[in-house]
């Protein structure tokens, strides 16, 4: 399996209630939209079926198309709010940050 690095911005506790950061490297065979769902599920400790669909926020096909077909000189970056997290997607990784009541 691959190395999914999970770093938190708090006290080193993976399941703390404080706002949590997660950095997820997108695998070669993985679609960016799939990575977004996986990363958010891990960060929020939620099962996939219980997340709100990504399509409600952004069309996964367009997201994947823009990122995967872009030339290497292009820096494509999408950021959006997804299941109460701030998510940033680039060609190589997904960064997610939990938004608790104070940060919204």
């Amino acid at each position, binding site marked *: 399996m691959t190395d999914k690095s999970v770093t938190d911005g708090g006290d080193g506790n993976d399941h703390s209630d404080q706002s949590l950061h997660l950095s997820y490297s997108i695998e070669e065979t993985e679609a960016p939209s799939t990575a977004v769902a996986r990363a958010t599920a891990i960060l929020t400790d939620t099962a996939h079926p219980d997340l709100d669909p990504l*399509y409600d926020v952004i069309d996964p096909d367009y997201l994947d198309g823009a990122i995967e077909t872009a030339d290497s000189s292009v820096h494509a970056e999408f950021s959006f709010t997804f299941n109460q997290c701030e998510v940033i997607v680039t060609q190589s990784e997904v960064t997610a940050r939990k938004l608790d009541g104070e940060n919204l």
Partner: protein
Amino acid sequence: MVPFDEQLVRLIADARNRAILTILHEVARPLSTAELVNHLSEHDELAGDVSDENDDREALYIALHHNHLPKLDEAGLIDYDPAENVVTAENVPDVDADWQDLEKLEELGSCMRAGSDIEEDAIGVLESREDVIEYGRYLADEADEELFCMYTTTDLLEEEHLEHAEAALERGVEISLGSKNPKVRDLARDRLPEATIWEPQLDWMNAPSGYPKIGRLVLADREQIMLALLKNPDTDSHHPEIAVIGEGRDNPLVVLVRDLLGPRLDHLDYQSDEFLAELPFEP
């Protein structure tokens, strides 16, 4: 094409979407997203794409829940409840998951456009025999109360169409089937004992010789019509077919056909072979 239809065609052009629709049509009941993943995995295995990796199943689940299912729901092709993770078919035509021909997909798109409520006055055109067969099955599935059909040759009663008619009978739909060809009437009587089988007296249905000529007519609930023409047969034994379709009580084509059929629609019982056979005297 109107943007709405383009999106519809784009959705159906995706093999996975077609597989989803086919599976929903086959099981004929709501499925959980997990069940759909299982069905699709089997489907892919049959297509030679074996993968039982948990990772791939997870990726498939994600793709369904976050992408395919909400999109199909938005287009009105299915109903997806993302909270309960339940998928229900929305009464769509049977879509063959093996179709690769884009031309056929565009025709299906026009088929579905005619089936949605965009314009009451719209008349659609079907350009191939496959589409005519498809739409005939669709009408059989759509009919709530009455299915009125007329055929001119035996080989227009495809096995699958008969199956869809049988299913309609089971739903309580009244079926009337007319044909000047006694072979067609026998076949229909055999397979659809509860249907009213009769012999049309309409000259315009069977004009002498010459192509193109009317091949079949299907009228569902007196508000959805398909009128198919047989073209000159070229090399194969089946006649190429084209059809016009219309939907809506006030749709010009529907109104025209209803008028032409006129009192025939009301006097079906009086024309049926069953009725004539019951008469104590020679008709």
